Each structure stands twice: as structure tokens, then as C-alpha cells.
């Protein structure tokens, strides 16, 4: 028999918090990173086939989309690493207080941006 009672609204109405936002971003960047690592493998394999392939990829990285992919990749990995460090502390039993977790959450968000800028350095000037 089909239940006639409705299901109460959930994700449609629930407020986002720093921690829930980072949790979902952590998953999304995780999936993106797997795709990126696979692509990097293909890239390396492509280079083995000769210089024309190298130029092909190089030309792609010169475009706006290519540059976006590079910055995005660095940010995605930065975010994943910092968020993973936060998770390690959690697994050790530290940082569960609301205040602490909010602060570490903000550190992850801003830290990932800073790390992206530091890693790319001068190359960031598009």
C-alpha cells in the first residue's frame, strides 16, 4: 500500500552551516580530483607519443578554459588536503566543539584559497 502521508521537507528548508558546506564540498572535490588524476595520467601518456601532442595540450592551457582548469585543479587539491587534515584531527578526537569546528572550517575555506595563490605564485597572473 502506498503511503498517503507526505514526507516533511528536508534539504529544501534546512539552513547550511560551515561544516555541512565543507562536508559536501569535500565530497565534490574528491570526485573531481579522481577525474583530474585520471586525466593527468592520460596527459603523461600523450606526451610519450611525441611533441605535436605536447603542443596540443600546451595550446589548451593557453586558453581561458585551460587556465581555469589549472587554477581549479590547484584549488580542488588544496581544499581536499586541508579538509582531510581537519578530518584527521577529528578522527583523533579533537576539534568537535562548535566554535573550534567553525574556526577550522573557515581556515579550510580561506586556507585553500591562500594555498592556491601560494602554489601558483607568479603564474597566477593570467
Amino acid at each position: 500500500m502506498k503511503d498517503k502521508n507526505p514526507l516533511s521537507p528536508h534539504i529544501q528548508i534546512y539552513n547550511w552551516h560551515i561544516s555541512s558546506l565543507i562536508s559536501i564540498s569535500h565530497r565534490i572535490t574528491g570526485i573531481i580530483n579522481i577525474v583530474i588524476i585520471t586525466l593527468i595520467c592520460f596527459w603523461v601518456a600523450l606526451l610519450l607519443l611525441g611533441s605535436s601532442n605536447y603542443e596540443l595540450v600546451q595550446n589548451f592551457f593557453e586558453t581561458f578554459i585551460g587556465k581555469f582548469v589549472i587554477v581549479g585543479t590547484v584549488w580542488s587539491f588544496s581544499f581536499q588536503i586541508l579538509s582531510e587534515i581537519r578530518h584527521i584531527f577529528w578522527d583523533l578526537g579533537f576539534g568537535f566543539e562548535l566554535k573550534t569546528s567553525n574556526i577550522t572550517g573557515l581556515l579550510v575555506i580561506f586556507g585553500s584559497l591562500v594555498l592556491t595563490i601560494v602554489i601558483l605564485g607568479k603564474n597566477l597572473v593570467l
Partner: protein
Amino acid sequence: MVQINLPKNSKVQKGEYYKDKTGSKNIRKVNIYRWDPSTGKNPRIDTYEVDMDNCPSKVLDLLNKIKNEIDSSIAYRRSCAHGVCGSCAMNIDGKNGLACTKPHKEIKGDINIYPLPHLRVEKDLIGDLNILYKQYASVEPWLKISKKDEDKENLQSIEDRSKLDGLYECIMCACCSTSCPSYWWNGDKYLGPAVLLQAYRWIIDSRDEDRKERLKKVADELKLYRCHTIMNCTNACPKGLNPAKAIASIKKMLATS
């Protein structure tokens, strides 16, 4: 499974608008989720204009005022009105909490009140918590002890007793469990923060003799490890407890034992 959209019969529609009749100048709009099982209709949001000059401070007072003076058909659970029983747990302004302890002054703009998220609605703001109670029973929330020496007190050191602080205060209002996305998607299998906090309360009790069995029972991919530290539970708890930490403590005990 993850299902972001609500089923067809759960889509919320616009409801009725109750205009203020008192002529008060201090008016707030209150949007309340309504569903009447006697009609075949979808749930709706009714809007009430409430005279705030004659309304006590908490959201529960607001609901009582609406029920007494504007629309007596509205249904919600409440009992103690002092944050002890946990009956009036609901979703207020996008966050789970107890209506009786939440001041409406803290809410900006219109006040939105929904039942606890992702539950089978019985009527209006009343959600069906049967699954949660069954899960609670499954952790056998009572002291297991072999001694039958009934003349003697079962003593506990101050240090051991202090391990129960932050756990025994839980009133099982379900604010945490119904705030947890993991519990939304896997509520039938994952135990959820409320029940896991209770499980930990018995695991860590120095007088209990069943610790190993309790840990073994809870060590399950779905029952326990669906917790991904989203922290919505700790954010929601109206008693200021930390279910996320309790769950992490169980995980840690399992990893180190």
C-alpha cells in the same frame, strides 16, 4: 538513497492567509506547514499575522497564541514548555530546535515553522518518530549487570561518573537525527546521532558489563559509519550536547580496541 526532491504528494503548496483582526501595529508573519490527513490534498503553508504586543517570548508561545486565538485546527506536540521533555522539537527558521526554548526575537523576518525534516508527517507539525524509537530500543538502553547483590549500592567513581556528562542530558527530542543528511538518506539503516549518542552513553558507563557486545553490535558500515562528520547534529542540539563527538568516540574506541 539520496533523493533530493520531495515525492509528488509531499510538494508544498501555498495555503491560506489569516489577516490580523486585532488592529495591532506590531505584526509578524508566521508561515506554518500544514497537512490534514482527512483531506487528500498536498501539504500547504498557511500564513498567520500575529499581534506581537500580546505574545510571550518563545516560539511555542507564538504557536499557542495562534492555536488559541486564530486557528484551533493546527496540530503540534508540546508538553513541559521548559526544554525538558523534547516534545515540541520542530524546524524553526531553517534549523531544528525546541519551540519552547527558542525566542522568536532571535529570528529575523518572517517566522517559518516546519515539522522535523524527512519524517512521515502525521498531521501539521507532527512527524512520525517510530523508526527512531525502534532504533533506540535496538541499542538496549539499560544497565546490563550480572551481580544480583541488591543490598549494596552500585558505586561509581567521580571520574567515571563525569564521563556521562554531556550524554545523560539527552532528552531524545530527535532534533539532531532529523538534521543529519546521512540520516535523511539512510534513516532506515543508519542509527543517527541521537541513538548513537545514547549507545555511547551505555558503552562508556563504567558499571555496564556489556561494553564489548555493545561495541560489536554498533560496529557496522551502515549503523555507525554513515556519519561523515557533517556536524549538523551538534549545530542543532537544543541542549548544547555534542553527538558528533560521541560518534567519533565510538569510532575511536573501535579503532583502538
